[in-house]
């Protein structure tokens, strides 16, 4: 064999090796995941670890109900390898954003498999006639029950393993560890709320995003506003609530991080209660109080129990 032929062969082998290596290199780069809001982003980060680089559309303290996507968001969705949404009609704007961004990859619906709840009947009157209220009034805030959170984790785990089969082992291990943490937190929440006598486990919050939480942890929730923060409370709503507070002797009223605090304060004052502090429902906090899914639960349970026992 003469030199040029041998050289060419070697070159060919090298090129072949390069082509073989290329996909492996791409698989090493973190999977670009876009999550619709802060809580999902935190879960993806917990399960994905260094296999993913997560960005979110609605940041901490933002309200996903009224989010208006900006061009930068469309660009981020377009460049994503995987898009994660909550589903249950939580992100009404998402379908349009995905279409306008031209994203053709997989969309993971994190809430797939949870049993959806209806919104509390007491507020359906605000959403028009009864038929309309019954239709499409699924409560999207499923993550407020840690059992559902575990379903989310399983969905995310399956999606990430499918996207990165090479890192399946690490992803599975992280998911298992995270699920164990969720289970521990679930026990903590139950323990904390169990300190409150059953008859006192009743609170008012300005945004009824805690339907799943209430059902899971035996807490009765009253609320001055409907599901969406868009609706303005009427005098009748407020009056009903004050009467309710007095009748049931509810003393704990909570201001959510994304609703009008003055309204809640007024109601609390007039119903003879206290404003219990901040609960986090639809978004994590920007400050370290509740900047992760787990910390959010610890914070909410502690604050709730503290206020209900404050009487």
């Amino acid at each position, binding site marked *: 064999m003469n030199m040029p032929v041998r050289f060419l062969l070697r070159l060919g082998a090298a090129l072949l090796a390069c082509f073989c290596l290329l996909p492996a290199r791409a698989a090493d780069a973190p999977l670009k995941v876009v999550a619709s809001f802060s809580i999902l982003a935190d879960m993806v980060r917990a399960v994905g670890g260094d296999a993913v680089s997560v960005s979110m559309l609605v940041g901490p*303290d*933002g*309200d996903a*109900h*009224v*989010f*208006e996507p900006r061009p930068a968001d469309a660009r981020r969705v377009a460049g994503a390898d995987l898009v994660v949404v909550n589903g249950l009609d939580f992100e009404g704007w998402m379908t349009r954003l995905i279409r306008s961004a031209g994203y053709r990859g997989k969309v993971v619906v994190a809430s797939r498999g949870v049993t959806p709840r209806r919104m509390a009947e007491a507020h359906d*009157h*605000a959403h028009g006639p009864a038929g309309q209220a019954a239709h499409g009034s699924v409560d999207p805030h499923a993550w407020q029950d840690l059992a559902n959170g575990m379903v989310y984790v399983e969905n995310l785990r399956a999606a990430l393993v499918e996207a990165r089969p090479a890192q399946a082992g690490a992803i599975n291990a992280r998911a298992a560890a995270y699920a164990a943490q969720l289970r521990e937190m679930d026990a903590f929440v139950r323990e904390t709320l169990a300190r409150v006598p059953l008859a006192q486990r009743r609170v008012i919050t300005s945004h009824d995003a805690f339907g799943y939480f209430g059902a899971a942890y035996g807490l009765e929730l009253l609320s001055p506003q409907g599901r969406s*923060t*868009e*609706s*303005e*409370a*009427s*005098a*009748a*709503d*407020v*009056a009903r609530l*004050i009467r309710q507070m007095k009748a049931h002797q509810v003393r704990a009223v909570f201001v959510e991080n*994304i*609703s*009008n*605090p*003055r*309204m809640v*304060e*007024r*109601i609390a004052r*007039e119903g003879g209660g206290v404003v219990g502090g901040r609960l986090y429902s639809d978004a994590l906090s920007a400050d370290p109080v509740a900047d992760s899914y787990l910390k959010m639960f610890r914070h909410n349970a502690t604050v709730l129990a503290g206020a209900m026992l404050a009487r």
Partner: protein
Amino acid sequence: MSVSMTGMFDLAVGPFIEFGFMRRALVACLALALCSGPMGVLLVLRRMSLVGDAMAHALLPGAAVGFMFAGFSLGAMSAGSFVAAMLVALGAGAVVRLTPQREDASFAAFYLIALAAGVMIISLHGSSVDLMHVLFGAILAVDDAALLLVACVASVVLAVLALIYRPLVVECCDPEFLRALGGRGGLYHLLFLGLLVATLVSGFQALGTLMGVGLMMLPAVSARFWARSVGGMASVAALMAFVSGYAGLLGSYYADLPSGPAIVLVAGGFYLFSLVLGRHEGILGSRMRRHLHKES
């Protein structure tokens, strides 16, 4: 008879006796009506009906900046919105002096810039729910501080209006007169704009920027159909604004309606009623009167 009378009384007064938030809302409406009525009438007479609307939008960036620094703080948001709206008023005034452009055109330009800046600041900083509260307010959530602010503003506005009433009214009817006075006319105009901004700021605490203008302009426009003198119109406007607030609150209580729009819609109903049946120049009202005159 007496039973139905007490029933009526209960319907009309009961909610205000039972609930403090209804009383507060009513008092806020009263204070707002007292200053908004006369201010609205003067705006109409000075052919500045839409300037109120423009100024209301100009509050937005100031309120947003106040919100950014201090959260839902009444003081910061009020001060911020007052400064922003005054800047717009002064800017528009300066343009009128320096260029041949008319006042309404420069107001339009400045308020649009301010509005866009406000929306920009709010959406860069936080969620747009905050924006909803600024635009539509929450009269049911009026607290001590807000009530105090509204009452103080109403008192100051009425007192200052009383002091500069004559030149203001004269200028409405005869702009040349005050121009002959020299710089004083401009001073009165500026003072008037200051009062306007103060009124709007207090209205925005209770009703939001958009609805606050409704309570100011609708009764003022309606008052023209019922009274001839400026004082008469101002009284009618204030009364109508207060009754709108009262009826809107009752509607919100009994019919489960959002309170801000209910109040402004009652004022709108007064306007349509006056338009048709008003004593002076109402579509039917003046004809009926003429008819009655002929018969008698």
